[in-house]
């Protein structure tokens, strides 16, 4: 059963009782919350995801709740918890749904060491996974949203999960997080894209999330073979330039963008080396999304 077949009332009731259980790629998540906006966030952005029954094994039990009753009235705040543990300081109440996205990033990055986790967006076309590692501001999410809006499959916007066992990229097709000006850029580029509530004045500025395509969610357990490793850099008014990058240098750059490379030790190095073996590596400078999409579509043939 898909989440968007449920009424808002049913979603609210589930969130307020034992939690709403749903499937995101290979992960099963349970979320409890008394914050009304969370139900709207889920219905808007997670509508295509499968809802799970109470017997399903849950990877991450999460909750979003105000820290105290007093805080409901005075500068209201919200806390994210995972298995009863609070990894972050509370945030303003209005940012509850954004906090869920950040909290779930933390859950996956901290507990999924069967994967080498690269801070990278990853999309797929014609069976080829294109991986875009990048620090915040590099334009990887904007590029990712643009490609997905033109029919590419979303595997992940934030974290590339590279299996240390088979070298494939495993999907976790969650909403694409856009910051500040990127929100308007994608609204103009893809007017049909569904963008949820825009959270203003967060630590990262304004944040909006793009709903993943239904096809990407439906293929949420199908891995893809890595084919291209591309380090993007958005530069205002720049030409579209794709420059080959030596594999050794690509390996070191990618290692800098991993969450758990050091935790995995030799397995991390071996997995990353195998990824480099399997991929053409590039640096990419861009400012025009249409040109970027055309270039990568051509490269994926």
């Amino acid at each position, binding site marked *: 059963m898909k989440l968007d077949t449920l009424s808002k009332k049913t979603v609210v009731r589930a969130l307020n009782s034992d939690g709403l259980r749903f499937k995101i790629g290979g992960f099963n998540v349970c979320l409890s919350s008394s914050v009304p906006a969370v139900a709207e966030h889920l219905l808007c952005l997670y509508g295509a995801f499968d809802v799970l029954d109470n017997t399903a094994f849950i990877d991450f039990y999460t909750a979003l709740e105000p820290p105290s009753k007093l805080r409901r009235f005075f500068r209201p705040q919200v806390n994210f918890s995972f298995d009863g543990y609070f990894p972050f300081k509370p945030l303003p109440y209005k940012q509850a749904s954004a906090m869920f996205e950040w909290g779930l990033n933390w859950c996956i990055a901290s507990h999924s060491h069967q994967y080498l986790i690269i801070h990278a967006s990853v999309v797929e076309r014609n069976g080829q996974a294109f991986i875009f590692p990048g620090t915040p501001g590099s334009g990887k999410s904007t590029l990712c949203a643009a490609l997905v809006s033109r029919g590419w499959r979303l595997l992940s916007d934030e974290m590339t999960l590279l299996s240390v066992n088979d070298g494939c990229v495993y999907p976790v097709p969650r909403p694409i997080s856009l910051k500040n000006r990127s929100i308007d850029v994608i609204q103009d580029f893809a007017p049909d894209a569904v963008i949820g509530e825009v959270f203003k004045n967060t630590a990262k500025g304004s944040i909006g999330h793009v709903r993943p395509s239904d096809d990407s969610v439906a293929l949420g357990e199908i891995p893809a073979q890595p084919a291209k490793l591309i380090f993007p850099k958005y530069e205002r008014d720049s030409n579209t330039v794709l420059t080959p990058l*030596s*594999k*050794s*240098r690509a*390996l*070191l750059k990618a*290692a800098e963008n991993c969450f758990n490379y*050091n935790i995995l*030790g*030799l397995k991390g*190095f*071996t997995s990353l*080396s195998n990824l*480099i073996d399997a991929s053409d590596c590039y640096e990419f400078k861009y400012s025009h999304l249409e040109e970027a999409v055309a270039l990568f579509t051509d490269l994926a043939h």
Partner: protein
Amino acid sequence: MFENNLIGLPIVPVIHCRFWDEECVIYNQLTGDAHLIDGMGAEVFKILSEKAATRIQLLQTINSNFEWEMDFDAEGFLDNLILEYQKLGLVDVTENTSA
């Protein structure tokens, strides 16, 4: 320097090499450090990843694969490289008992 020595990767298999084109990345499992090495250094590790070698053997292979400026001190450069790699724990220098 190193005339009577055998140069090789540490006996305990903690050094892992991956080669691409003229470059390589050497991973030290003990420290978790990865080193990007190119040029003569990459050639040295290509040789050592197969088996330990003497300084003369390294020089012979390197000299056949590289062209140097007339006044370039390849021997001195190689000695410095080996010294540096030894300090990083990437190679072991032992007495050459078969000499």
